[in-house]
């Protein structure tokens, strides 16, 4: 497959899934409105801060900005394809993808990007409206935004590869939902969605920063708010890069091995 032909196929897959998802725009809006866990945390932390129970010198807008950005980042890396992958492997529908002259991997990437293409523009008015009403945008460090965007992309890559890896586990496990639930619980807990990373106890923070989870949520948010020093950012990007490569390679190895044991159930 030449590069041009590969790109053409990927664009066609992206257009195909975007057309499919555009059927479900009401569902997207409901997810956006319903995904309010970061907003609940926002109110809790603003209240805690106002009651003087926090030792640091924080303002309310600091927490508002942090959790509004967490809300945005979570929407950028919301992923449903591992559920589809799990079902397709178990029920044998993966066969159709395996029979096409395009690696199924590109299907899932296109599926994910198509989801983002629909979801992100629908999410932006909520985010901008949130900043406009609260004036929390003053907490943003505009000079750091390009780096934050890079960290966001790195986080999405880890999240995509990790989800692909978990979906691929269906080649051997009968259901991978429990694995995914555990991963998501860890992500929420250690990613900075409940407690901002900077408020983790020092020892715990050092340990957590070796896991992939902070790089999916809190890391890009902290960069966007200028909370990290240069060396911290460099260390963060290096660790993030290691996780991108690691999850990518393990997922690929599992896919190659899994397709050899695939039985195309029921087909």
């Amino acid at each position, binding site marked *: 497959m030449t590069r041009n032909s590969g790109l053409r196929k990927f664009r066609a897959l992206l257009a195909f899934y975007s057309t499919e998802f555009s*059927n479900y725009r009401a569902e997207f809006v409901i997810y956006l409105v319903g995904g309010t866990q970061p907003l609940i945390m926002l109110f809790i932390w603003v209240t805690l801060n106002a009651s003087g129970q926090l030792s640091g010198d924080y303002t309310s807008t600091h927490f508002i900005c942090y959790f509004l950005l967490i809300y945005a980042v979570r929407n950028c890396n919301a992923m449903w394809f591992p559920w589809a992958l799990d079902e397709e492997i178990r029920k044998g529908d993966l066969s159709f993808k*395996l*029979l096409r*002259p395009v690696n199924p991997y590109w299907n899932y990437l296109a599926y994910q990007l198509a989801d983002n293409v629909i979801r992100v523009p629908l999410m932006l008015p909520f985010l901008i409206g949130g900043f406009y009403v609260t004036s929390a945008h003053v907490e943003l460090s505009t000079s750091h935004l390009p780096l934050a965007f890079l960290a966001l992309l790195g986080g999405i890559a880890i999240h995509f590869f990790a989800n692909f890896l978990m979906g691929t586990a269906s080649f051997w496990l009968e259901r991978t939902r429990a694995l995914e639930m555990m991963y998501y619980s860890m992500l929420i807990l250690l990613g900075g969605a409940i407690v901002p990373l900077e408020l983790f106890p020092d020892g715990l923070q050092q340990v957590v920063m070796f896991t992939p989870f902070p790089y999916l949520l809190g890391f890009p948010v902290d960069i966007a708010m200028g909370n990290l020093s240069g060396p911290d950012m460099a260390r963060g990007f290096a660790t993030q890069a290691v996780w991108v490569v690691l999850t990518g390679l393990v997922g690929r190895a599992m896919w190659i091995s899994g397709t050899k044991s695939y039985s195309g159930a029921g*087909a």
Partner: protein
Amino acid sequence: MMQSAHQSLCIEVKDLRKTYRVHKRAAGFRASIKSLFHRPMTEIEAVKGVDLSIGTGEIVGFLGPNGAGKTTTLKMLTGLMYPSSGDIQVLGYKPQDRSHDFLRRITMVMGQKQQLIWDLSAADSFALNKVVYDISDSEYTKTLGVLTEMLGIEDVLNKPQRTLSLGERMKCELAAAMLHSPKVLFLDEPTIGMDINVQQNVRQFIADYRAEFNATVLLTSHYMADVTSLADRILVIDGGQIIFEGSSDTLVNRFSAAKLLKLQFDSEVDADMLKAYGELKNLRGLKAELYVERDAISVTSATLLNELPVADIAIEEMPFEDVLAQLFDASGDPK
């Protein structure tokens, strides 16, 4: 069209084997709890040394009872499944490599599964296949025209799949599977669940497609009419092994020890009385069908004419499906 020496080989399989490892669990709550802690694995030999050769342009019917190894063999021939051992060549390719050149030349239709997306139209999926299979604009327009005409689906192309009938959906599935003009068609129960008219349409389509594209077809079906009307040759698999290869007539001759006597009586005849002459297949009013040993057919016919009020008698070969049913019953493997 028997595969002959001058005909080029399209599919060649030697000593193909597939063994699955599955965990064994008895039914019931107690067994479910036990299986949480201990899962004994068992090996199932689904395909045990299959050899086959199929020539270019041939239609071969692949028959066997449930669990005989038909679909497993088909999946290995398409590259969906890795064989445990043995050699497969399809159009000179090793299917399990799943090279894109190979995938562009084959298709598989699975009657029990649909590739078209429920909420999108067939036209949306066709447009995707056009790009994925590198089909040029002119080739696409031409093939789509031929397929829509053969299948009569022009009016439903732009409707979401969920609004179509089963027959319409299946025809769209066939069109989607053939859009890239594949040279080899693996059809696994392509007419399952369809009414008689749609089944006939699909059979005609397969015959026309072979004629138009000189395609090779390997077909499994539980509808004997699919096989008898389309296949040049029949392969019967049971217990993971090919137990017969040849025409449907040869199969009937070789495996039916009995012939079918069709009788019409002048007055009512008792079923028990008929059973004395052979195996009674059915008795409805004044008509009966009786299986009689091939060697005894002349004597039995003469006796029946003498002893019972027979108005008319006809001797026929055992119907194809009955021969198969007998054959599968006799093979003894657990199905």
